[in-house]
């Protein structure tokens, strides 16, 4: 059996790794290069504090995989589990309380924390800026070594990774996928895994398959490196502003993304202004510090907030996308699921691409 994976982000790589472990011949096609997509541009927040049962399960499994795989690859992802802190103002506290009940029922360790207690954990935190919060499992991972580690692990298992290789189309016979057109050749494969993140809709279109994911653009910036003082990853769900401190000491932060019409990675001044206001409101100590760089990334989100994983009406064409902004927290487990779908024909109704052919389910996100 031969499988082509489109995209060398965390989803594509973990899928390739799981398949190759079972002896499958895998080739990854990457339009650009490693880290070009969302896997190289995100802020590395990892948590099990999700708002859906399915997501919590995936996140728990992913953290377990991260723990094991760093030893297996002998690669340190600089995963620092100093907690994940969600804060909100009064209006949104109810939402946090509700998801916290769900998390607890599934064995996730979460506790409520009042704004003044947050200041004891994060020096300089402005208790006036929020009404409350919850702190739970998770922390910060450095996404780059995650990708480098997976690339190395995949290569050791014989996975071929082709960079600068844009998929131009597919060869289809009688409603069955037969091959992938890359550059000037067609490569015969049995399955294609669409793990191309923000480009998933475009790739689906090439295959003639409908995918209703939205493209989301999110911007981030970092300030000059400081001695460690922010331990947890902090996300304000009311303003969308998030802040954490990297292993180098740079304060990394951004604002939760907005829908875009195309995968566009240009930076904006409005983001910088908005983020600076939001971040300084939350941690006033950040005022006056120099921004080192800013950038933007794109990801895709499914209509109901759950990943889209499963074989489509086109036999052999498998979706593995729609992870939203939680890719780093979910993707290692998604890789295992895709492998089961391909190798054992297992079906996961909750993630199935066909679920959108029925009237849309509403989502809390």
């Amino acid at each position, binding site marked *: 059996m031969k499988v082509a994976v489109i995209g060398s982000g965390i989803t594509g790589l973990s899928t390739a790794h799981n398949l190759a472990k079972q002896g499958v011949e895998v080739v990854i096609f990457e339009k650009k290069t490693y880290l070009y997509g969302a896997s190289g541009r995100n802020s590395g927040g990892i948590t099990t504090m999700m708002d859906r049962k399915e997501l919590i399960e995936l996140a728990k499994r992913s953290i377990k995989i991260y*723990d094991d795989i*760093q*030893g297996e*690859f*002998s*690669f*340190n992802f*600089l*995963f*620092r*589990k100093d907690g994940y802190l969600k804060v909100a103002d009064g209006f949104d506290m109810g939402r946090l309380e509700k998801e916290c009940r769900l998390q607890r029922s599934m064995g996730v360790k979460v506790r409520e924390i009042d704004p003044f207690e947050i200041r004891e954990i994060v*020096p*300089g935190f402005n208790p006036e800026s929020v009404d409350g919060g919850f702190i739970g499992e998770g922390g910060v991972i450095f996404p780059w*070594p995650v990708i*480098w*580690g997976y690339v190395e692990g995949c290569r050791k298992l014989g996975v071929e990774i082709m960079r600068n290789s844009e998929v131009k189309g597919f060869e289809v016979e009688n409603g069955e996928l037969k091959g992938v057109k890359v550059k000037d050749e067609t490569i015969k494969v049995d399955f294609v895994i669409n793990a191309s993140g923000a480009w998933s809709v475009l790739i689906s279109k090439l295959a003639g398959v409908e995918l209703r994911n939205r493209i989301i653009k999110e911007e981030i910036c970092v300030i*000059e*490196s*400081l*001695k*460690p*003082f922010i331990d947890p990853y902090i996300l304000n769900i009311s303003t969308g502003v998030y802040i954490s401190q990297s*292993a*180098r*000491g740079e304060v990394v932060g951004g604002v939760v993304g907005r829908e875009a019409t195309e995968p566009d990675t*240009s*930076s*904006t*001044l409005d983001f*910088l*202004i908005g983020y600076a206001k939001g971040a300084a409101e939350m941690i*006033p*100590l950040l*005022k*006056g*510090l*120099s*921004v080192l760089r*800013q950038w933007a990334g794109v990801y895709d989100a499914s209509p109901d907030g759950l990943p889209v994983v499963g074989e489509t009406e086109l036999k052999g064409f498998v979706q593995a996308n729609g992870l939203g902004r939680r890719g780093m927290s979910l993707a290692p487990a998604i890789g295992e699921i895709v492998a089961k779908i391909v190798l054992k024909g297992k079906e996961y109704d909750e993630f199935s691409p066909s679920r959108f052919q029925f009237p849309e389910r509403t989502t809390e996100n």
Partner: protein
Amino acid sequence: MRLTEHPIVKFKRGKEITIYFNGEPVKAYEGETVASALYAAGITTFSRSFRFHRPRGFFCAIGKCSSCMMEVDGIPNIRICKVYVRDGMKIKTQNSFPNADSDFLSILDSIVDRFYPHGSHYRKFNKPKVLRDFVTKQVRRFAGTGNPPKKAFEEKGSFEEIETDIAVVGGGPGGMSAAIYAARTGARVVLMDENPFLGGQLVKQTHRFFGSGKHRAGTRGIRIAEILSNEVGELKNIDVRFETKVFGLYNGVVGAVEKDKKLLKIKAKKIVIATGAYERTLLFENNDLPGVYGAGGVQTLMNVFGIKPGDKGLIVGSGNVGLILTYQLMQAGIDVAAIVEAMPRIGGYFVHAAKVRRLGVPIYTSHTIKRAIGDKKVEGAEIVKLDENWCEVKGSEKRIDCDFICVAIGLSPTHELLYQAGCEMKFVPELGGLVPMRTEYGETTVEGIYVAGDVAGIEEATSAMMEGRIAGLDAAIKLGYGGEEAIRLRDEVVRDLKEFREGPFGERILSGIKKVTFEKEAISVSAPEREEAISEGIE
């Protein structure tokens, strides 16, 4: 260490004030940068480096390297070569304990590579998990350069949105010329510079210029800066923003910070980038030691702030900058031990070299610097002979006594803004590195973004001024200003620039320019139209 007498420059020092370095009072004068005031007080180690805790000091003096980051009034990571002293200012060293001069962690410099070489934080101590978690935690404790502020910055920030015809980034010869010529046609111009004065690097050029009389030959650089900035001052439609750092171009919007407090959002119809260049450094052992400086950094220290860089220097590179600098050092009463040049011949103009020779400074051609000697600062240098294959000749090492080393091996364009704006760039060695593709009027592949001066290719102030005029005029013409007269003037400067480059030294530049110049019309024809044109036999 401050110069009091100089044959050409008269140093007008401001009021004497006191700043505090790690709590100790230091005398300074208003108008000086923090870096130059500390340097004048004999302080050469400003901070320690991120990983090895090696001493960090002065290098470029123009805000383009990150060697001089310190804590200023509680705010960490400030480039002190771009901050001007204020009475009572508190300056602190970073990433060191107890201070940068005698940092306990400097021991890391000799041991870190043996036990924890580069990449170890990914590769080492991965099994078992407990060990990995422990190491990951410990490594983090060593991270970070500045200290997080203890209390929030109190100054109130403000915001201004400006709409203008032309925004000019950089107030050097290129930028000022662009602003002047555009403004003369009636266009509204915003001219931004990170210094509290205009002139760019002209302010340290105490020598007379070559070239044609029409373009200020025979005048000293410092004088040209004065003439141009006076012209700028006289034009009412130029809005000059001093101490303003442009940090990004966002689709026709220029993002900048004025005096570290005010955010500027400038909507401009055309943008002229004239950000100049920065100094290259050279690979040799200890090249990061305080005392190893960029040639321009030394010029800034000496010619702008009137501060002696040291007692005896070694100059690396015999191009015009190295030769002129040598002469300027001697002029200020500072000894130059030697000039080393890797090429078998002297790089700069004969007149400059002859002047230096007459002063008795030896020029070692086919020699390079092997290492800087010293613990916390330069105490000497070792040079070595090179054979015809550029390999070191064993046994030819020679120690030069000096207390500072100037690296004068050329400049690289400050191209970051262009890159960020999406201009198509090309690596052209003749022009000093990565430069933008441009039309003969200086317009890049991004419509409305122009370049002028060293950022478009390393040349000299004379051509920068001409490029500036062309860019400023063309931008104004495209906006409907100036009429026939402006077009005539623009084309005249284009001809003058061509003529200037046709001189004996322009050959290399011209071959570089050829590689990056495109015809705008040819580019703007879209592919299908072009096919049609070809099929109709037009092309």
